[in-house]
């Protein structure tokens, strides 16, 4: 079963996203912060990470940078509230699979996530 990690400090978002993808036979784990996310990635080795950029304790970009610094090339999709040229470019250079704007259209998310998960 493909494994998906959802990182967002909004519990509601995590819950409903988990429910949504579980229905599609995906093993979903959630993290409400950057540090927790890094732990889960290391221990559970998810196939794809849905990473929110703006989080309290540690930003999504920092999580991404740390992962790449540890040579962890897990697939990542960034979720962001603001369109920002610099962030977009940096995350592209760090090899993210997608860049999704909040509030998202669920169908689009489904398409991207399922595409990435079924690719392997």
């Amino acid at each position, binding site marked *: 079963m493909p494994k998906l990690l959802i990182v967002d400090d909004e519990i509601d978002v995590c819950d409903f996203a988990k429910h*949504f993808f579980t229905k599609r036979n995906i093993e979903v784990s959630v993290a409400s912060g950057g540090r927790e996310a890094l732990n889960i990635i290391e221990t559970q080795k998810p196939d794809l990470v849905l990473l929110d950029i703006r989080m309290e304790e540690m930003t999504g970009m920092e999580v991404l940078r740390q992962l790449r610094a540890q040579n962890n090339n897990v697939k990542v999709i960034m979720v962001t509230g603001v369109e*920002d040229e*610099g962030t977009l470019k940096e995350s592209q250079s760090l090899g993210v699979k997608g860049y999704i704007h*909040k*509030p*998202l259209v*669920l169908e689009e998310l489904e398409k991207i996530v399922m595409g990435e998960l079924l690719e392997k």
Partner: protein
Amino acid sequence: MNWNLFTISTLILTITSSILTAILLSFGKTPLHRVWGLYNLSVTLWGVGGFFAGISRSPESALFWWRIAHLGVVTIPIFLFHATVLFCNIKRYLLLTLVYLQGIIFIILIPTNMFFSGIHLIFSQFYFPLRGSSYNLFLLLWILIVIKAQYELFAQYRKVLGVRRTQISYLFTALIIGFLGGITNFLPAYMPTVYPFGNLSIPLYGIIVTYAILRYRLLDISIIITRTGIFIAVYSIVLGIPFVLAFGWQEKLINLIGHNWWLVPLISSTVLATVGPFIYLYIQKRAEDALLKEQRKYQNTLRQASSGMGRIKDLRRLLQLIVHIVTRTVNLEHTSVYLYNPANKNFVLGSYRRRKESDFKIPEAIARETPLIQHLTDSRDPLVYEEIKQQAQDFGDRNRAQLELSLRDLDAAVVVPSFIEDRLLGVIVLGRKKSGKLFSESDLVVFTILANQTALAIENAQFYEDMKKTHEQLFKAEKMATIGTMADGLSHQINNRLHALGFIAGDALDSIKMKKETPMPPEIKELISDIEYALGKVQDNVKQGGEIVQGLLKYTRKGEEGFSAVDLDKLLDASFEMAQYKVKLNQFAIVRDHLPNIPKIKGNFTQLQEVFFNLIDNAHDAMMQRKTEKNEPDYKAQLKISAIPNGKSLQIQVVDNGIGVKKEDVDKLFTPFFTTKLSSKKGTGLGLYVIRKIIEENHGGHVDFNSEYMKGTKFSIELPVLA
């Protein structure tokens, strides 16, 4: 030498009247001044003749000098009458001719026996002439002419008002003093036992009259009389008591205290001379307080009001208070205050109060270039209508006549300038006193103080109002900045809610779709389809809300996040592309002028796009405003954007030839919510504020601005380049 009371008095008389003659004949401006000069010359002649006659040792020489003296005596009433006619501005041609004619006849008679029949010694002091056969007639005519002159003055006094009335009361009083004294000189001719003691009143008379004619702002005559009366009373006691003690009571004192009797008059004169001035001043003050009770009262009120004015911060209220207090306490018909308005270069009516209904319409403004304002600026003194009117009439002065007209336009009795240093800040216009009394010198002093205090208070209030405005603008700007910071946090929060909401609705919808094919009772099916519809609507609203929040976030982003190398050409392309949705770009020429490979800007593309979009939008509006408003046939709208690298920065200029900005608006241009744009169609007043914020705060650049009305506007922007 033969010194006696008579010779001393004639000497003093000669000195004073010759000085007056010299002043009047050299500085006199009108026929009245010159004729009055001739009168004083006659008095001088009498003084010279009388003096030399008085010291003459021989009867022959004395008679000669008496004849010289009488050349003066004969001409005195002639010039007096002539001066009176001129002063009263009345026509007495025939009478004046007759007066001159009798004078000529008597002048011819002077050397003959018909005037003086001989000479004799009187009081064992000096020779005095014996009257001849024509002397009685001469004296009769002399007295009649003087009485006629006095009568004309009196008749005039009842007719006129204002300054002239005060002047006449001076002349009238002076004439009585002078001629009652002067006439004693005739007495020895009839009663050899009466000494010509009154000679000294003649120069007094000349001095008073000359003062009254030359000066227009006279003290109330009752004050002069009171002062003189008190002075004479006090000093007769101060000097009289020791005199009486020394000469009258000498015998009694010797009997009483022996040979040291002289100590009594000495001590008493010392004591009295010491306390005399104090008594005099005390009595004078009490007397004047009583005479001027009313005037003192309002002057005090005004003084108090002056010192309290500085505390009032509201300009409108201050002006209202000034006119109110002045009108009420001085009991005037009306009062108004005009304030200088630099924008229109005129004085604008600030406040006006009239106590009784009238058709008179007070002017709304006084131009700065009028003679009235010029005069006030130059002289810095209050202008009194009655004085100006009288002077205009007496001197036939055109400038004064013009001033009189301007004062009449304001229905003004007095106009007081209000100065701060050299700046004429305002003008206080006072109506007549309801009592009909004139404004006194001390009134004018009080009003000058009031006017200058007013100027200070006005400046205070104006400064306070300006400060309040600036403060309000600053406050608005601050509020904007706070809203900006808040909006950033808020929009993220709202965005996250929307995001969650979208997830919740989307997931629920997804579940419904998955279970749709499951068989279920029709009513449940209908319910589920309702819920499906509702969730779809929620998703739509989330999407719309998301777009609004995105728009907000655009304005509030900051910091170095998202900085990259920005190519100016690409930036301008994107900005024009953005602008074309709002304005028609084919309405003006676009010139882009810079070298092909200029360094890249270190900046945030989206924010800079916002900046140039705003500049293009503004330029377009300015050019279209000029096009539609001014209707110039040859006008070709053009927007030029050029860039020059300058060390670590890039200098970009955005120049349009639109309507430009008026000078007074330039400073406010970067203030949030300030807009010069017309109508409601556009202009939130935020554009330039955002530009400055993006360029200076976010990019560490600099934005400068240059605009001239009807010429156009130039924005100079300095942005850092990538190292």
